[in-house]
């Protein structure tokens, strides 16, 4: 088993604000192989706090988080004898903004930073970095460039490569597609799929775009005001009447369906885009 959270709550204590409960009694399990999970929810619903519990950057204020063979609670988190770094190697977390992590003078060095920290030799780390850069679609010409002179999308890819290079068992991505053009978004999502097909890496990604959820995710987690309100397949999610209450959209295909239903008394139940096209053609002919 990869990640198992049991009744996890997290309260932010601040000196100039009242305590804020960002996670309320969240329990979930994420397998170490072949999961493809979308984590959705409106801004401030606790998604980012949740993923920081996945790789031991944060500890539950109450409840416990089992990350592979390490169990973290509020008490054991403080224990320096329990090393957090090995967990972070197995569960890689990519933050939303690449600016917070790029610092080396070349792209290649920056991507090799993580594998080097986890004890690989210089050459091995460089090799892993090169492989990771190819994966995210950056060719050799980028390797010697400064990460600060790249475009927003390229920085994003470098930061993702920086985590891919350490070959985690579970890959957690905080809005991997934000700030990218549609084509790059699709390309990156396909990269994640192909990584999974090859190495069975479990993937968790935060997103706001329901089209990605429908196309890629096998499982969806919905957060609302710190609670986990839904855990199931995308298909089951889009049938749920509470969607609007969760401030959630449906994929474009569903909107087309809805339109056809109300304006053209369209009845056929369809599940895939191809079926939708077929149904529209049939409706047109009759």
């Amino acid at each position, binding site marked *: 088993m990869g990640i198992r959270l049991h009744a996890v709550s997290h309260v932010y*204590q*601040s*000196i*100039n604000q009242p305590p804020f409960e960002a996670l309320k009694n969240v329990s979930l399990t994420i397998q170490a192989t072949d999961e493809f999970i979308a984590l959705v929810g409106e801004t401030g619903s606790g998604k980012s706090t949740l993923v*920081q519990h996945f*790789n031991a*950057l944060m500890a539950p204020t109450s409840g416990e988080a089992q990350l592979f063979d390490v169990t973290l609670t509020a008490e054991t988190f*403080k224990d*320096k004898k329990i*090393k*957090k*770094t090995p967990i*972070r*190697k197995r569960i*890689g*977390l*990519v*933050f939303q*903004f690449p*600016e*917070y*992590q*790029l*610092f080396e003078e070349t792209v290649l060095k920056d991507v090799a*930073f*993580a594998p080097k*920290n*986890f004890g690989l030799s210089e050459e091995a780390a460089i090799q892993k970095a090169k492989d990771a850069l190819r994966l995210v679609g950056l060719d050799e010409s980028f390797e010697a460039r400064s990460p*600060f002179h790249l475009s927003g999308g390229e920085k994003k890819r470098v930061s993702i490569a*920086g*985590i891919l290079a*350490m070959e985690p068992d579970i890959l957690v991505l905080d809005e991997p597609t934000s700030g990218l053009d549609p084509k790059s978004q699709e390309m990156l999502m396909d990269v994640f799929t192909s990584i999974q097909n090859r190495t069975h890496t479990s993937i968790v990604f935060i997103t706001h775009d329901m089209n990605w959820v429908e196309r890629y995710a096998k499982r969806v987690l919905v957060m609302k005001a710190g609670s986990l309100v839904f855990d199931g397949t995308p298909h089951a999610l889009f049938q749920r009447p509470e969607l609007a209450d969760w401030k959630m959209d449906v994929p474009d295909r569903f909107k087309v369906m809805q339109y056809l239903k109300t304006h053209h008394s369209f009845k056929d139940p369809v599940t895939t885009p191809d079926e939708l096209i077929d149904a529209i053609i049939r409706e047109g002919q009759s």
Partner: protein
Amino acid sequence: MKNIVIGRYIPGDSFLYRMDPRVKLIALFLLFVAVFVIDELWVMVGALAGILVLLPLGKISIKKVYFGLRPLLFLLIFTFVFQILFNTQGRLLTTLVLDFDPLNVSLAGLIFIAWFYGKRWTSFTFLSFLLALAAILTVLSQVTFLRSFGGYTIAIYEEGLFFAVFILLRLVIIVTLSTILTITTKPTDLNLGLERVLKPLKIVKVNTEEIAMIIGISLRYIPTLLDEANKIILAQASRGVDFQEGKFKEKIVQIISLLVPMFIISFQRSDELANAMEARCFVPGKPRTRLNQLTWKPLDTFVLVVSLVLMVASIGVRILW
């Protein structure tokens, strides 16, 4: 990192919050003068007592002020120890003869190691450190097992002790007063207050508005940059940086991995801020109106008079005593 209080405004309501920022600044200045003029220990103790009364009256928890002092704890202890050890003026109060022999030095070492590894189980790190220090000094001075191979005499002189306590109190008072100011004043109000207080300097062609704005923006961005630093630490921790450990060489890499993004983000933020200001048609030096006008209340007159009296009194005490 989240508990750093310097420059942070903490919402609340009391007479300290309702005071005019101009008055707060002038009063702070007057009280600073008073604190620097005082040269009698009992007056200084009285001043500290006054502040300790002021805090609950102004509904500011002492804990928050302590958080403000904590980053300076090292500086405070350092000046204190320095004064006690090296100031040799005045009457000799007491001496402590330390004898070093292999056995009692190792015993002292053991006590230190016990404290060092035991401190994680107690929440009173500092208190337990003082206890351990006292124990070490006792062992070194009282117990001699073997022939000593050297000795050191700690001599505490009257002046040394006096100045140690005195400077400690002065620093604590100054930091506490400034912490009270930033805790109770919104950055915008502080900015406006500064601008108005500095206004007379305009006669000698000092660009007071810009100075006020620079100070205001700096204070405003301290908590923001601390939050950014926190995010960078998390992002680098995800890439295997263990900020709690590492040899010297690794420590350097860790610090670089924090400082470089910090620098870049600071420049980005200032760039964004400049753009945002320009988008709102900000022109330096142009007369500006305010949403909230400052109003002078009887409370302000009262506070101003009290701090003026305190300053005059402390000067008076200095001259006449």
